């Protein structure tokens, strides 16, 4: 049976380089002074390139006469004016709510269907051709159909997000579930671990590195699909607002919308990383221990 092509890496690359804890010892906390200095140098590393890029853009836009590339200060003042107003409630929060709802639904569907497919080769054989077909349809082309089926309200937008985000989660979950170590599975059987406990402590946990990799890909997709779904037949949301600004030649505002989208993506990705470092604490330690050997 053919394996589904993976949309991304089977396992997340270890972000940061947490040192392997000493063998046979509890992980140690670094010294305070050292930590502060490290945090300072890290902040420098993180901020250096953005500052340079903004500087380059500032120079380019100041020396350019183009109407479409406003200087950073214009964009910044448009940003403050726009997003620290009632637009926060009218556009930003509804967008984020749709994004998170869609992402959560996709995660629930993707993981549960993925577990089902991963555990039963018969279900896999039955569903895989259909799933491969559905996966090949680019989610944006579903928008016209979704408008017919679900109208132009939130449920259409959420459906579009779900229809795109579910795939990386589903496929990675299937891979993860299929890769459960047979020795560990035998161990669980010997100790009478079955049913939902088996699912909870064995299957989902051992597939969690792959599931998290799928969720990370899906999160990036969710932001894109959120904007796309709001560009059609919409009256609110960031995608709607940005298109509206563009059409009314409110160029600094259009840029401010793009900047906000970037910041939302950055924040969500940082939050995700935080969650991942907790969920996959064991996995990073395990990998570090293997590398150390």
């Amino acid at each position, binding site marked *: 049976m053919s394996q589904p092509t993976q949309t991304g890496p089977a396992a997340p690359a270890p972000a940061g380089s947490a040192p392997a804890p000493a*063998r046979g010892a*509890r992980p140690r906390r670094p010294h305070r002074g050292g930590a502060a200095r490290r945090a300072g140098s890290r902040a420098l590393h993180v901020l250096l390139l953005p500052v340079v890029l903004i500087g380059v853009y500032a120079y380019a836009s100041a020396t350019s006469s183009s109407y479409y590339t406003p200087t950073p200060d214009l964009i910044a003042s448009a940003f403050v004016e726009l997003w620290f107003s009632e637009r926060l409630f009218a556009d930003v929060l509804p967008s984020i709510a749709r994004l998170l709802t869609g992402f959560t639904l996709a995660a629930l569907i993707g993981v549960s269907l993925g577990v089902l497919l991963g555990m039963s080769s018969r279900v896999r054989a039955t569903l895989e051709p259909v799933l491969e077909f559905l996966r090949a349809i680019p989610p944006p082309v579903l928008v016209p159909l979704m408008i017919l089926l679900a109208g132009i309200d939130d449920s259409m937008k959420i459906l579009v997000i779900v229809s795109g985000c579910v795939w990386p989660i589903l496929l990675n979950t299937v891979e993860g579930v299929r890769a459960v*170590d047979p020795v*560990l599975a035998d*161990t669980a*059987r010997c100790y*009478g671990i079955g049913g939902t406990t088996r699912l909870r402590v064995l299957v989902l946990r051992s597939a969690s590195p792959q599931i998290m990799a799928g969720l990370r890909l899906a999160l990036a997709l969710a932001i894109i699909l959120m904007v796309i779904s709001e560009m059609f037949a919409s009256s609110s949301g960031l995608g709607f607002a940005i298109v509206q600004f563009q059409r009314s030649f409110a160029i600094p505002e259009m840029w401010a919308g793009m900047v906000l989208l970037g910041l939302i993506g950055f924040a969500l990705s940082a939050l995700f990383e935080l969650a991942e470092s907790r969920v996959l604490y*064991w996995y990073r330690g395990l990998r570090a221990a293997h590398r150390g050997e």
Partner: protein
Amino acid sequence: MNHQGEHGTMLKVTGLQKVYRGGATEVEAVRDLTFDLAEGELVCLVGPSGCGKTTLLKCIAGLMPPTSGTVELAGRPVTAPPPDMAVVFQEYGRSLFAWMSVRANVELPLKEKKLGKARRAELVAESLEAVGLTAFADAYPWQLSGGMQQRVAIARAIAYEPQVLLMDEPFAAVDAQTRADLEDLIRAIWRRMGVTVLFVTHDIDEAVYLGERVLVLSSSPTVVQDDITVDLPAERDQLTTRQDERFTELRARVYAEIQQAKNSAKGAPENPADGAGTGAARASTAVH
């Protein structure tokens, strides 16, 4: 075989056969195995590499159905992993839950047994104490050395309070010094708990040092070739026991049996289900 002594039979294997069918080819891994273990016995199973030790153990553990023959545990036929049997696998790194602390690994089967919280804590503490890992209860398995990880697996097995403890080459992948320590640990636990132990190994020294009895298996297709009672004193010591004249004699006997098994089976097909995991052999008198 009449080794039951004053106790009853705990584990009874009768006419066990396992044939692997893959398309047109058939490989008979285990031909006809019959033996039994009395309650509280410590028996070592030793045989040439690829003789189907792992297949046999999986059948006994109820993880794999035999092609024919039966396995009985305390008079009840084994068709699925029985609740009063614990297994320690060779691959310690793959048999522990990497996402759980040492304590949680040991406690998990007890939760499934629906034991109360206080009783679970007691059993976990006792078993970690027995394997000398009390200080590492909150560590993760991957923070420990290989030998310590195998101790965790042993602690989990004894906390489960099984009637029968199966061990599938548990020390094949640890270094020689750790191995000697773990051998003594198993003897100590066996003597204290009175559990019935079936210990599968490819190491002749280990089989004679540990066992009260050694079952020598033939090459694949496997039968029990010999059943040797180890009449060494119950109190064993890595230094003196291994220098004991009787130990040397028994070792020589088992060694000769295995050589005979290997020679009589020259040209016989290798058993695909075994052998792969037994790479880390000890230099002394490992069977190769």
